[in-house]
């Protein structure tokens, strides 16, 4: 994923291979590397699989009357951001600096019309890279939806994620991953999207939870998950999909891919184990929801670090991440705000920990500056993402709420999103009344 660093490595590799006469055509333009392309196609599919995975994960956690509305939030992102990305998102993210580097632009990327035959130096058609990146753009706004689950209008949500994708995701993606992005140039390590995806979504979630307010009856009324079985299946899909997310972010099919894949597995398992043990100690019961929360805490923490730490580092990141997330959620419960599905508590906290904690467990030789300096660069990346996402999200929330409306009215909320917004029922069609 760090496109230009990756490109630099690949130029060297490419040059070596060029001597062997295999990777470049006679006119010097790169040729397709079928191995890398095959893996990147697979990764693209795996990351897309995370979106229905997220739909199931979130869908199972809400009340019966909101299961479809909640799953629709994830699916709608596939449609809305899927189109925005192809029209201008890829250009805004991976074009050259415009407007002082706020975002990028490249006329060739507009409507993806100029990349029909492009082969990148990594040996993959540019279409593959554009689609792979597009999946990240899709899942990020879908993550935020967990913070305001069960209480927003569908129309408002659609407009919100469209604007958020354009004005928050694309600029952040450009800053961190494009060749001329300002955080990239400072040397911030964000292998697969801790800063761009999880911290920005976490910050947006926290702001949205405060601005939109708690669900009616929260926290006094018990609100049980309608289907934890579905949540567990969703978590399974996320875990599997995450191999595409992290190992695919190497944009190669080789050593770095293997390193990223290994640490992803280690961190996920460590996160799950840590949460399970913690609940076992504190409540004498290990819960399934706790287990999958630990999986996510581990996966999110390793995301920024996947290319830069060894398995022992992943073990540390995963084990600690669950503990931090667990107590962040305890704190939320004490403070009483309604980040319904703990987007900040898990994605925000784990990604902050991963992005900063990775400095202490780096693979020897990863950085040529002092640990203190790298720590500052990492912190700066986190603060930029947190601050930018929080401020822009607040502006967008106010804008949407004051125009088309975002928050549902109390009686609409009580009726449930499925029936009120979509005129459907998640489980009703299976009942007597169909």
């Amino acid at each position: 994923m760090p496109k230009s660093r990756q490109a630099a490595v690949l130029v060297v590799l490419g040059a070596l291979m060029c001597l062997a006469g295999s990777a470049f055509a006679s006119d010097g333009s790169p040729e397709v590397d079928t191995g890398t392309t095959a893996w990147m196609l697979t990764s693209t599919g795996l990351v897309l699989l995370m979106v229905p995975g997220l739909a199931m994960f979130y869908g199972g956690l809400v009340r019966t009357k909101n299961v479809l509305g909640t799953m629709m939030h994830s699916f709608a992102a596939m449609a809305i951001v899927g189109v925005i990305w192809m029209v201008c998102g890829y250009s805004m993210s991976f074009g050259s600096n415009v407007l002082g580097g706020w975002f990028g632009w490249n006329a060739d990327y507009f409507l993806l019309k100029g990349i029909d035959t492009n082969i990148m130096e990594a040996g993959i058609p540019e279409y593959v890279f554009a689609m792979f990146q597009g999946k990240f753009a899709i899942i990020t706004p879908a993550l935020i939806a967990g913070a305001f689950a069960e209480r927003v209008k569908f129309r408002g949500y659609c407009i919100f994620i469209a604007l958020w994708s354009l004005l928050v995701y694309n600029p952040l993606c450009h800053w961190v991953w494009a060749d001329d992005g300002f955080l990239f140039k400072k040397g911030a390590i964000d292998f697969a999207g801790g800063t761009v995806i999880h911290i920005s979504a976490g910050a947006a979630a926290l702001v949205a939870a405060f601005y939109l307010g708690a669900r009616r009856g929260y926290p006094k009324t018990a609100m049980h998950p309608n289907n934890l079985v579905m949540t567990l299946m969703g978590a399974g899909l996320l875990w599997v999909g995450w191999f595409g997310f992290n190992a695919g972010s190497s944009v190669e099919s080789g050593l770095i891919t293997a390193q990223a894949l290994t640490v992803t597995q280690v961190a996920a398992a460590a996160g799950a184990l840590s949460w399970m043990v913690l609940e076992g100690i504190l409540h004498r019961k290990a819960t399934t929801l706790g287990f999958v929360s630990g999986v996510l805490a581990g996966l999110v923490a390793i995301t920024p670090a996947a290319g830069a730490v060894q398995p022992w580092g992943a073990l540390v990141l995963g084990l600690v991440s669950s503990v931090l997330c667990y107590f962040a959620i305890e704190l939320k419960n004490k403070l009483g705000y309604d980040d319904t599905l703990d987007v900040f508590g898990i994605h925000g906290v784990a990604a902050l920990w991963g992005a900063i904690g990775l400095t202490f467990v780096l693979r020897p030789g990863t950085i040529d500056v002092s640990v203190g300096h790298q720590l500052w660069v990492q912190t700066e990346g986190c603060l930029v993402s947190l601050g930018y996402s929080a401020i822009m999200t607040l502006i967008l929330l106010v804008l949407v709420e004051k125009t088309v409306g975002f928050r549902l009215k109390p009686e609409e909320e009580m009726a449930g999103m499925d029936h009120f917004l979509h005129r459907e029922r998640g489980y009703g069609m299976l009942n007597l009344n169909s």
Partner: protein
Amino acid sequence: MKLITAIIQEDKLDEVREALIAAEIGRITVTRVDGHGRQEDTEIYRGLVVVPNLIPKVEIKIGVNDEFVDVTVDTIVKAARHKEGGKVGDGKIFVAPLEDCIRISTGQRGGEAI
């Protein structure tokens, strides 16, 4: 003693429960039921507007001593009725005589077991 059975709209369950608790009627049993009365409710299935002949409702059962019948019924009516004078489908309440009531844990019978 009377057995009060109320069939209400699903979206009014929270309000009815909250109102009953506020009126100190804290012992209720709730069931999901399907039924039909005069209300028509449409759903959309792949573009086809479907009129389900059975509409999901919530049934509440409460056993009360005679002096609590009015307050229970009034509370449910007030909380379960939709705004602006109610609407078709808001539901019904049945009050039936209750012969006996036994608390399983202690074996107490009659009014004191309610």
